[in-house]
């Protein structure tokens, strides 16, 4: 217990330095600025803003990223509530009641409740992360390369099983990501692998190029396809940002339940936050005395899913910080950012760089607070952004992304690479492949390869070691089970289809 308080105190002392407060604020503001743009979700926002954090010291960069993350999420829920366009799967549920509230002139309340619910959830989840961090890390330190490899397999399988869409296609995306990660010089021998003798590929494919291309540029290309958009922007001034005591009281249960559900589901890899928001909404509807209000502007229908997705977003840091395994696309972006700063995510971060570890956890809370105190009152400005027509918005995003990409290495080649991945991403979207598992595979690729090679070397070339070492065997068995459970309904459905056809 004392350790926990000491650690949190260290974290807050790092996060509350004037410089880091400034980074967090800039991050939150810029994150909201981009996140509020319709059709630009959390992942896309973070991918686009990633480069602006690269010039900072590592702790400052991660704190700024935390700010961006919160800003992006808040911007996303603003768009959901006011325009009825969910930027991300996690805020789909928010549109149901949020937009209805906005139509009834209660947009201010919906926005405030979303932020307050998120903040309460964030406070709880921060403590949970801090409490679970230390014990899980000590478990992770016992892992050898064999166990690590199996753990990564499990993490990836989890991510695939919980994600939406076809399991096989998501697996294929992971394989594609792993393959892309292999490009470049071999770690041990230095041999150029699949570089096609291009010196630019010798260092491998830059993480930011892939992320920006697949999530940023590809989205723009797809959005350009749409006919001139007709947005149902809620007109009128947004008032009533201060919720009344009655509002708070009626939402307290919803926020508490949302936080609980979100914290639990967030630890699971994959679409933790998405499932959490759906689960919290459904649960809240069941708990409600008057379920018919849901979908017609029930304030609990905003508070519960927003608390849940924020709690889940926060606890999804647990697998990343303790095991070094990113459970979703946002965390994969975090890994990318950490790697660029020379930090290898995993259990050793906490022991070797406690200020970074705890500073980051504290800054998550801080980012959340900033959102409520500074960002929420600015909602009027953000609403103005929603009125910017797309014909001006997409060139702005393009220019911003290009400058960001170029700034990483001062290399025009990076910009071109990101453009290529934009086209790749567009193709993936068109063929209904999810880009998120690809990014996970890409981020985990080097780690997986390294551990696989080491495990095989230690076992003297016998792959059986993965099944004879108990922890590894259990992890792989769970992976196999999960895959079977995920694929079974697909097969059953197909059989049913066949059955229907024949009858």
């Amino acid at each position, binding site marked *: 217990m004392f350790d926990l308080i000491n650690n949190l105190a260290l974290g807050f002392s790092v996060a509350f330095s004037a410089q880091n407060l400034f980074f967090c604020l800039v991050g939150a503001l810029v994150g909201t600025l981009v996140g509020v743009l319709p059709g630009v979700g959390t992942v896309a926002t973070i991918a686009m803003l990633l480069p602006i954090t690269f010039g900072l010291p590592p702790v400052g960069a991660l704190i700024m990223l935390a700010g961006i993350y919160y800003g992006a999420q808040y911007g996303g829920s603003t768009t959901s509530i006011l325009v009825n366009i969910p930027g991300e799967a996690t805020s789909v549920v928010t549109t149901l009641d949020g937009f209805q509230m906005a139509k009834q002139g209660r947009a201010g309340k919906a926005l405030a409740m979303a932020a307050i619910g998120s903040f309460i959830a964030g406070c709880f989840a921060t403590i949970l992360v801090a409490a679970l961090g230390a014990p899980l890390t000590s478990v992770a330190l016992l892992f050898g390369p064999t166990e690590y490899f199996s753990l990564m397999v499990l993490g990836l399988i989890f991510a695939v099983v919980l994600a939406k869409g076809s399991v096989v296609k998501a697996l294929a995306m992971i394989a594609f990501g792993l393959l892309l990660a292999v490009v470049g010089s071999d770690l041990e021998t230095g041999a150029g692998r699949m570089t096609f003798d291009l010196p630019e590929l010798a260092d491998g494919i830059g993480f930011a190029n892939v992320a920006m291309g697949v999530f940023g540029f590809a989205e723009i290309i797809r959005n350009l396809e749409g006919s001139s958009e007709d947005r149902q922007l809620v007109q009128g001034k947004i008032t009533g940002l201060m919720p009344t005591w009655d509002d708070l009281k009626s939402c307290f249960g919803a926020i508490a339940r949302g936080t609980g559900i979100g914290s639990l589901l967030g630890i699971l890899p994959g679409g933790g936050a998405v499932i959490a928001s759906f689960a919290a909404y459904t649960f809240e509807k069941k708990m409600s005395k008057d379920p018919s209000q849901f979908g017609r502007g029930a304030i609990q229908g905003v508070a519960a899913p927003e608390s849940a997705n924020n709690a889940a977003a926060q606890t999804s840091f647990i697998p990343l910080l303790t095991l070094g395994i990113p459970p979703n696309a946002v965390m994969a972006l975090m890994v990318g950012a950490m790697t660029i700063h020379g930090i290898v995510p995993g259990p050793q971060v906490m022991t070797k760089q406690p200020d970074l570890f705890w500073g980051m956890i504290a800054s998550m809370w801080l980012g959340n607070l900033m959102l409520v105190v500074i960002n929420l009152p600015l909602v009027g400005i953000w609403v103005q952004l929603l009125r910017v027509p797309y014909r001006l918005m997409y060139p702005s995003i393009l220019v911003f992304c290009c400058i960001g990409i170029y700034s990483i290495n001062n290399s025009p080649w990076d910009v071109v690479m990101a*453009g290529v991945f934009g086209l790749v991403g567009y193709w993936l979207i068109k063929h209904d492949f999810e880009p998120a598992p690809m990014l996970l595979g890409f981020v985990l690729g080097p780690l997986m390869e390294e551990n696989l090679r080491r495990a095989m070397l230690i076992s003297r070339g016998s792959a059986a070691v993965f099944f004879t070492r108990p922890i590894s065997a259990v992890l792989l068995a769970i992976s196999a089970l999960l895959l079977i459970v995920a694929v079974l309904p697909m097969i059953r459905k197909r059989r049913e289809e066949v059955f229907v056809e024949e009858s």
Partner: protein
Amino acid sequence: MGTIGVGNREMSDRIEEPQGARGRIRNAQDFWGGVVLIGLALIAFYASWDLPGMRGFSFGPGTTPRLFAGLLMLLGVVIAAIGLTTDGPAMPRFAIRGPLLVTSAILLFALMIRPLGLVVSSFLMFMFAASGSSETRWIETTLAAIALTAFCTILFVYLLGLPFQLWPRFTIGGTTIAF
């Protein structure tokens, strides 16, 4: 009964796909998706063919690329097979204008940034990208371009302190003219 059932299904297929030319592939989106993945795996095999593989107990540089390429190949085959055996969406229609516009704007920026510097490149790229829209209003666009250029310059150069070259720089006959 069986034959009638099959006939019905084929008819409903035809209703879903008025072109009828691709009617034989029932889930063209997945089928061609899988085929392209197989192609990518083949390219990876080709590119990593000359890399040494296993040496005794230890992996060579070529082992993992071929392992991952094999995995991708396998999954590509499964997806293509699913595309042949299930009903699903037809081949998606790809737009030409959007991808072309975005790609050429990006290329333009990559070519301009070194010689012309941040300010001019940002402004010109914005104007170029915006001109691709069917409803461009020039005064509005120019103002927006100026505003964005100013915003990016302040954010990247002054707030974040990144080392950007702001203005054009030319080297003529050994002397560099910088603005």
